[in-house]
Structures are given as C-alpha cells and as structure tokens.
C-alpha cells in the first residue's frame, strides 16, 4: 500500500505541464550562471557573485516558489478534487499518508532545485565547497518549506496564496526591513546551513547563528508535521461526498 501511495503521489506531482515550468525555472538559474561565466569575470568577483546568485536567486526565490507549488498540491490537490476520500477510506494510518506525501514532495522539490543549484554553483565559480554548502542548504530548506506548506494546505483551502504571501511579504519585505524577524524566516534557516557548510566563499550568507537556525528549523518541521497529521486525522468521511 505504501508503494502505491508513493507512486500515485509521484505521478500526481510529476505528470504535469507545471513540473516542466518549474524545471525551466531551475534551468534559468543555470543559464544566468553560464551567461555570467561567459563574460569572463575575475576570480575574486565570481565567488561573490556566484554566492549571491545561489543565495538570492536559488534559495531566495526558486526554492520557495517550487516548494510552495509542490507542497500545497501534494495533499491540497486531492482535497480539492475530492480524491482524498479514496485514500482515507483505505485501512492505512493517516499519519502514513501525511508522511509519504511529505517525503515525496520533499524529494520532488529537491530534484527540481538541488541539481540546478549545484550546476549553477560549479559553472559560476567552480568552488566545490560553495556549491556543496548551497546544495545541502537547498535540501534542508526544501524539507522545512515543504512541511510548512503541506501543513498549510491542510489548514486553509487557499494555501498557495497564503504561502506566496508569506514568501513575498514576510521573507522578502518584512525580514529585509526588521532584523528581529529573521529567526523565523525559513530562508534565513537555509542560508545559515549554507554559511556553515559552504566554506570561506559562503561567508556572510546568513544573518543568523547556525545553532539558532538548526533549533528553530527543527521545531518548525516537527510542529508542521504534527499539525498536518492532526488535521488529516480529523478529516471526517461523510456518507456522501459534498
């Protein structure tokens, strides 16, 4: 049953024109890195520009955009279309449904983002440590973003809009102005991982202590998973689907 769950989720998330669009966004990151490389930049500058490319574009825009679309549609689309009842009616623990959906959307987000970040990082500067640091950051960030957005899709039916608003208004606008809000910004959590693991080239990526980011990030992930499980466990199957 778990394998069936895995395969329907994978097919729902990958067999769409949308996935192609999201993959193209990742390709755009690589294209910008190539264009930059073709301009034959000095080495000292290229490290800094590559870091900004990976941080501002990769982690700052691509990752949340892909995660919000993948994460909110993993369970959200089934809730909207009403097909969730066919899953809930099966003798599978609901927390298993949530966990599988979470794992798959995390995997899909990583597949769409991490290769682009690694390739763009290697093309932009060739500093393997920087690329590796940002790759790990994208994987960790993807986990946190997708769990939050999956939980969000179980809380509200307009999860995509709310998620986009969080990304643009909170992470883009508020946390740029008010430094005190940065500990609760997922982007900063991911950047802290990049700074910790990306070697000297990644210095100055984040405005957050690594340990703070790890602790708050872990709390957010666990809380989001618990909320998601709780919400799905309290969905009631009615005799007739509305």
């Amino acid at each position, binding site marked *: 049953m778990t394998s069936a769950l895995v395969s329907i989720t994978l097919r729902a998330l990958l067999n769409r024109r*949308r996935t192609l669009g999201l993959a193209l*966004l990742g390709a*755009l990151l690589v294209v*910008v890195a190539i*264009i*930059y490389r073709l*301009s034959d*930049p000095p080495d000292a*500058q290229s490290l800094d*520009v590559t870091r*900004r*490319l990976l941080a*501002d*574009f990769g982690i*700052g*825009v*691509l990752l949340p*955009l892909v995660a*919000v*679309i993948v994460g909110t549609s993993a369970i959200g689309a089934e809730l909207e279309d009403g097909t969730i009842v066919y899953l809930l009616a099966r003798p599978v623990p609901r927390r298993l449904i949530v966990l599988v959906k979470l794992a798959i959307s995390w995997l899909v987000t990583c597949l769409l983002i991490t290769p682009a970040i690694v390739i763009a990082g290697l093309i932009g500067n060739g500093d393997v440590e920087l690329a590796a640091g940002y790759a790990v950051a994208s994987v960790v960030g993807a986990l946190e973003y997708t769990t939050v957005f999956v939980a969000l899709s179980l809380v509200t039916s*307009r999860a*995509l*809009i709310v998620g*986009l*608003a969080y990304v*643009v*208004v909170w992470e*883009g*606008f508020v946390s740029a102005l008010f430094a005190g809000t940065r500990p609760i910004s997922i982007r900063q959590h991911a950047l802290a991982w990049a700074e910790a693991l990306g070697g000297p080239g990644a210095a100055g990526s984040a405005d957050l202590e690594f340990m703070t980011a790890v602790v708050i990030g872990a709390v957010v992930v666990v809380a989001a998973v618990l909320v998601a499980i709780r919400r799905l466990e309290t969905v009631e199957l009615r005799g007739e689907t509305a």
Partner: protein
Amino acid sequence: MTAPPDAASGTIYDIGYRHYTGPRLGRRGAITAVIGSALRAAFGLGRSGRSKIIPWGAVILAVLPAFVAIAVRVLAGEILEVTTYETYLWDIGSLLPIFLAAQAPELVVNDIRHHVLPLYFSRPMSRLDYVGAKLAALSLAMLALTLAPVLLLFAGKVLAAQDVVGALGDEIGSLPGIVGNGVMHAVVLAAIGLAISCLAGRRAYAAGAVLALFLIGGVIGAILSEVGGTLADIAPFTNPLTILDGAREWLFGGSAPESPVGVSNVPLPIYGLATLLMLALSSAILFVRYRRITA
C-alpha cells in the same frame, strides 16, 4: 392579459413571460458595466474582508511614504527630502507586483475557468471590448498605487508652503511627469498582469506566475547590475519595473539612485522601445488568447 408591446418578440411559442421594456444600453452600457464590476473586484468591494486585505493593504502602504514626506515637510521645513516625484514609484516598487499578482487574476481567471464568457459575448459586446474593458479597469485600479500617492505628495508640497500660489507655480512643472509616469506604469503593468493571468488555469497559479516574473527579474537584475560591464548594461531589461523606470527617466528625467538603470550604459530611448514592446507583446497575448478561446 396585455399583449406584448413588441409583437415580433415572441416568435414561435409565446409562453407568457413578460418582456423587458426598459432602455437598452447597448455596447457602451455593456462595456461600462464590465469596467465597473472589474473595478469593484480589483479592490474587493462587495466581497469578504479577507479579499480586501491585499489590495487595500498595498494602497495604504503605497500612500504612506507620501504622508510621511508631507508630515516631515510641515514639521521640519524644506531641509529634508524624504522622497521625490521621480523616485516615488521605484521606492514603492515591490508593492506594485503584489497588488498586480493578487488582483489581475481576480478579473480574468474565473471567467475562463467557469466558462461564463459566452454570457458576456452574447451581449452587444465583442471579445476585444471585453479585453479592453478589463484592461481599462485594471489600469484605473493600478492608478491608485502609481498616481494617487504621487498626486498626494504634490498637493501636500503645494499646500504646506507659506506662499501657496508661488509653490503651485514652482511645482506645477512636474505635474505632466507625475501623471504621464503614473499612467504609463499603470497601463503597462496591467497589460502584463492580465496577459499572464489569462493563460493560467487557476487564480493561485496566475498569481504565482506574475510574482515569479517580477521576483526573478528583480533578483537577476540586481545581481547583474553589480557585476559591471556588458552584463550591467543588460541588467535593467530583466525586470519590467526597471524597464519602466528607464522609460520614465527618458521621458521625464531624474534618476532613481538604486535602480540598475543608473549603472547601465544603454541609451535611454531603448527603454521606451522596450516598454512599448512589453505593452505590444502583452496585448498580442491577450488578443490571441481571447480570439481563440472556445468559450
């Protein structure tokens, strides 16, 4: 029972429904009605409080700098200039995509999604009229962000002066620039927003696509403009807002210090050309989409 006033109206079966005898407003009436309802939708009027948060929040945040600037001027005099007519729209730049992404899909997506376009097109209204009406309504709505705050700043500057008539004489010269720039931003952004939205299947995806365009364009532009050289020259053209800022500088002068336009060596008329190109491309997308749509 009275006979129907127009004998020709019940042709095959007259099953006794009363006929409409009021004035028929025709094409113009239909267009005005669509503009009116779209304007109400753009500001969430007649809808729940939740759908008013983003449009009105954006409008309030857009007007805020003008209020602060006027307050500073009244309290501190002319020593400190908080914001100017030229840089105002660049300063509030991140609000424009948010408003656009939230409200452009509101106007067009559900009409397509729920297949109600035949109801519009069965009125004396062509497909082009419908697109034009939506574009006009969203442009008018955008003026609340692109024109109203700057006009407020203008009025504040004039009225705060000791010599109102003299101040009016000083400031009136910038009025054409204020209005022209506001209208240009509003129309071009509205066209871009509608063109993207009409291709999307759901409002949320349309909002995401509009935001993605401005977010990605803005980030790439900011990074490239710091690289310098040829890349800094092309940097402004990754973001519609920067292109508009360049066109504004070409038409009305005055540069925004943080805009990538400043570090680019591209001649300013190119921005005007690029602006026209964006408008033409968006209109073409809208035109083709609505001509082909099997409603």
